[in-house]
């Protein structure tokens, strides 16, 4: 089946992230100097400017910081999904990650409600970290 939506753009900064996703691991850089877990992926820690980082795998649990409901498709690949939810998920490890809330009606989405990861295997080498609400 042809996947009609945009695919991730991989570059030297975020390669570890998307490779992790293909193994269903949500990996972020954690600064070895100050402990800050950063996203977006970056060569340098925005808190202390150290370039020394290790990769951690996040639990995939968090809560919704904010969300929007798309009623217009800016790209034809999303037309059949309308209305769909894009949310900023505040992960337990710290970073906020922009993703989709899936598996529920958009009316059931609210700020600060808990969510967990729901991997979406879109193609052989690609899995997208999406989220579902927890009761």
């Amino acid at each position, binding site marked *: 089946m042809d996947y009609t*939506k945009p*695919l991730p753009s991989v570059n030297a900064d975020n390669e570890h992230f998307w490779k992790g996703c293909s193994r269903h691991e949500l990996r972020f850089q954690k600064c070895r100097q100050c402990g800050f877990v950063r996203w977006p992926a970056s060569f340098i820690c925005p808190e202390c400017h150290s370039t020394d980082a290790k990769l951690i795998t996040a639990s995939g649990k968090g809560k919704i910081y*904010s969300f*929007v409901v798309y*009623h217009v498709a800016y790209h034809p690949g999303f037309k059949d*999904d309308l*209305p769909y939810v894009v949310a900023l998920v505040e992960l337990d490890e710290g*970073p906020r990650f*922009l993703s*989709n809330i899936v598996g529920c009606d958009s009316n059931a989405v609210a700020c600060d409600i808990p969510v967990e990861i729901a991997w979406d295997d879109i193609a052989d080498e690609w899995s997208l970290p999406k989220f579902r609400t927890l009761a």
Partner: protein
Amino acid sequence: MKLKDKYAIVGIGYTPQGRVPGRTMLSFHVEAAANAIADAGLTKKDIDGLICYRHFPAASGEPDVTSYLVAQHLGISPTYLSQEANCARSQLFHAISALELGSCNYVVISYGHNALSSDSMTKMLLQRGIEEMVFGHFGASADYALAAQRAMHMFRTGSETWKHIAVGHRKWANLNPRAMFYDQTMTFEDYFNSGWVVEPFRLLDNCLVTDGGRACVITTVERACDLRHRPVRIMGIGQHHPSDYVQRATHLTGPTGARKAGEKALHMAGITLGDVDACEVYDCFTYTVEITLQDLGFFDPGEGEEWLAGGRIEPGGAMPVNTSGGLLSEAYHMGLTQITEAAMQLMGRCGKRQLGPATHTKEPEIILCSDNGGTLQTHACYILGRL
């Protein structure tokens, strides 16, 4: 020597605007610039500084509109040339800096875009946020909607607040023959009936997409006094750029850059908010107007609805806001919509929408302008005054 009141806006350039097919981005830049030069009573040989506003992706079949290309087509050879990439919002600062350094004497700031009729905006949308696109997240409207949704969680705001902003701007546009919505009125009912785009924003929470251009000319107050129009003095300027990535940002629900930028501009001008007669604030979305006025200190978080109710920002109101109709109802020329409208008001050239007796508002002596970019990531504030 103090910078306050040392420099002035002396000429404004308009172009046809709205849906204007068959025109390049460059053509709007040069037409607006040429009109601003003529409006000031200057000729192109006087112009030795050029600053072009945001550099949008070139439309298919068109050249990249660099500032030297604009200079080339204006037939000028400036001794100061600058082009801000993206949303830095510091064009007036650059103009003043160049003048203060003695690099030039007369600076043109221009903007032009065929946003409605070309594919440039689509290209911009698809270049922006490449990591978010995989989740179907595109562009400014949705980023601001994320900010607005969180704000609705943090304090009392939402459609009941924003309807006053949308309708208020439209009332001003209905007095401005140049406005894209000059002929169309808007009621609260119209606002609520406009469909969701990216919820919590309805269509009428969103600004316009415009073909057109805008420009202005800046020089010293000393030189300004010999020119055609009553000069508009630049009393105060301030910037603050929170910059932070939208996903990580904590400033989305305030204080945004408007807080610090406003404080700096008011301080330099030596005035308080109480001295401001009107505001021309960047209004890409209704929420942007609310959060900007809130962060400037006009009201506390959650009190916007009450403050706005009763037409405070409308014709006849105590604090007119965006008297041309703004980006929401006049036309989108980035921050130049605001700066040029403030200057025209202070020059007294606004006809039916002129602040003062014509609109049952206070005669304007001082107008506050704000300019905001990214997703509340960059901010500049300007205090302009009558000379």
